[in-house]
């Protein structure tokens, strides 16, 4: 891997809800299920805590993909949080796509605490998709380039 010097390494920010998806990530870890180091996880209490500003912020700062993971609909620790998140993100993602931002750079996935395998799978898949898209230039901020 690290042999290829100028290989594009995407930066992926993953917002994971504390009760399901973050636990799912832990399970992926304790099951030694690997996924790219490009994925960096930020813990939030619930998927409904994710503000569109955070997503834009990530892209501004150089992220190439942003994924939001929450409990499966119906299983939200707070009963309704992921339902709100689902609507918000649906509307936001469609708007971004409308403005020409690659749809595949953003994603919502429901991962339960038992789905360590799914978590790893999703992250591998998403990282692959984002890598294929290449660097995010459309929503980047030149001032934040190193």
């Amino acid at each position, binding site marked *: *891997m*690290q042999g290829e010097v100028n290989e594009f390494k995407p*930066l992926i*920010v993953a917002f994971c809800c*504390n009760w399901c998806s*973050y*636990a799912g*990530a*832990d399970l*992926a*870890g*304790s099951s*030694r*299920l*690997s*996924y790219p*180091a490009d994925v*960096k*996880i*930020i*813990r*939030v*209490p*619930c998927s*409904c*805590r*994710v*503000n*569109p*500003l*955070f997503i834009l*912020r*990530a892209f501004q*700062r*150089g*992220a190439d993909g942003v994924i939001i993971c929450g409990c499966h609909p*119906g*299983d939200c*620790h*707070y*009963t*309704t*949080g992921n339902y*709100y998140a689902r609507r*918000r993100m649906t509307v936001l993602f469609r708007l971004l796509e409308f403005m020409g931002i690659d749809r595949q750079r953003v994603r919502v996935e429901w991962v339960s605490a038992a789905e360590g395998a799914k978590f*790893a799978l999703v992250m591998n898949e998403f990282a692959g998709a984002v890598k294929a898209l290449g660097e995010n230039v459309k929503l980047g901020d030149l001032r*934040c380039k*190193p």
Partner: protein
Amino acid sequence: MQKIGVFVCWCGTNIAATVDVAAVADAMRSEPGVVYAADYQYMCSEVGQQRLIAAVREHALTGVVICACSPRMHEQTFRRAAERAGLNPYMVEIANIREQCSWIHKDKAVGTPKAIALARAAVAKVLKNAPLTAGESPVAKRALVIGGGIAGIQTALDVAEAGYEVDIVEKSPTIGGRMAQLDKTFPTLDCSACILTPKMVEAAQSPNIELLTYSEVEKVAGFVGNFTVTIRKKARYVDTNRCTGCAECVAKCPARKGKNEFNMGLDNRSAIYIPFAQAIPNVATIDASQCIKLRTGKCGICEKVCSAGAIDYNQRDEVIERRYGAIVAATGFRPISLEKFGEYAYQESPDVVTSLEFERILNAAGPTKGQLVRPSDGKHPHEIVFIQCVGSRCSEDAGKGKTYCSKICCMYTAKHAMLVREKYPDVRVRVFYIDVRTPGKNFDEFYRRAAEQYGVEYVKGMVGKVWRQNGKLMVQGSDLLNDEQLLIPADMVVLAAAIEPEPGARALATMLTASMDTNDFFSEAHPKLRPVESPTAGVFLSGACQGPKDIPETVAQAGAAAIKVVGLLSKDRLVTNPCVAHSNELLCNGCSQCEKVCPYGAITYSEREVVDRGVKDVRRLASVNEAVCRGCGACTVACPSGAMDLKGFANRQIMAEVDAICRAK
């Protein structure tokens, strides 16, 4: 200026094998705000914690980052350690470099840079952390149970048993509820009254239980541990302390046109009445809408015949206010109205009855003294058709009925069929069903007994139409198994009407800010893990108000609700989670978006004066009840102005994490 200490754990080789822990510590030393960084084999060990404590004291650390395993493992451990060192426990952040790094990456070339990135994010976050202190609120050591059916009674008994005071509010004149109307119970066929009435008596006699019958909840304020509830005790026009329940007045009352609710309106009762013989409290109640004296001022017979002088025509409703620590909803169910099901001729023929009406007909204390006769002519029926799923399992576009399965119908229909065949072997009994559902201890055996031993004929199929024809009820249905159309001349038709929540429940749910599903059943806090709690802290659910249930299930849930109540009342003070939402009143618009998404009703609004940039203004402002908020953060995104923020997961903190992670690129 913050002073951050970073501690990198090896977790033996769990982390150290694929992450260069020393390099991580080293990288952290050059992070802004970090004044101390070290690595150690096992941070969670007592020695490790001591190192943490020592460093906090020695370097006067204001914040700590632990690079170790998942916070779900040891966040509490390290928070307590920090507290022991005199640091606010919420000034601790964990970088999960085991589950999220060392365990999923093969070598240090990959693991170390990622660990550094995660550590950076944690440092960036803790730099924006603020000390948080958990709030406390007192607990009123009294519970309120709303609904005096078997669910409410059982919950109250268990709570009382545990030594706490509990009130039962029941809107009808007596407790007992639906179970009191039942003749026998499946699958044991023991008499319902025989097992219920002792519990009713027990409830009445318990020193810890106060029965507020013929009363309704009018207003609920406050929050978990501190509810203030307004209750209206409706006027009975009878002094309950004097009334002996001798029923002399009932016998003499000239107004006898009132529909007898207890017998599902199959017969009439007098204006002054006692719902049934074992009613508790066993006192008379005057139905103002029927009473001649109250309507016209004439009559007054009951007053004359009452030797106890208990009649009081001038009695008024009484409104009382009480404080409770916990509230249990046990409002129960009722059969749905069948007006939309004209095909079964329920409105046209008195011989088409619902199962609950049939229950009364079979009951020795019922309108027919337990004789199985046709309501229309009092004749003995020879052919009875039972129709199941009337209004249950309807498709959404049917425009009538319920989509759910009412759960209890299969069993009570088997019970009715069996009872009929047992007492009157001459009666032919057929049951039309879609599926027979008998999950439950001894349920299927019971059903098979009905079919195999008692000769109840089960017909898989739907009934299309029922109509009256020369004294008979023509039942047209299909027998799917034999693939034939049946036309049955029946004497009686019994409809297993779907059950639905009591209509009052919706209003109550609103008062309690407890959410309901689309069918007006109370929603549970978690469908699997918190089935007897409502999402609103301090409000619990008992019995069929949460979903269709039979008696054993109801009693079980009632007990579970009781233990939740007891668990709550056993505390003197409630410690609240400090990671809750908070509204900046200078930014708040009072638009109520946050209030609408809050699943706990934790957000309230009030008009307050603010000074914004030197300008005085009176505004409608949100405030969060920290005892009720659970910290999901739904409100923070619903709020466009950013007035709502979440302590511990504040906008600035999360953005700082994002920035730090992206900086690593």
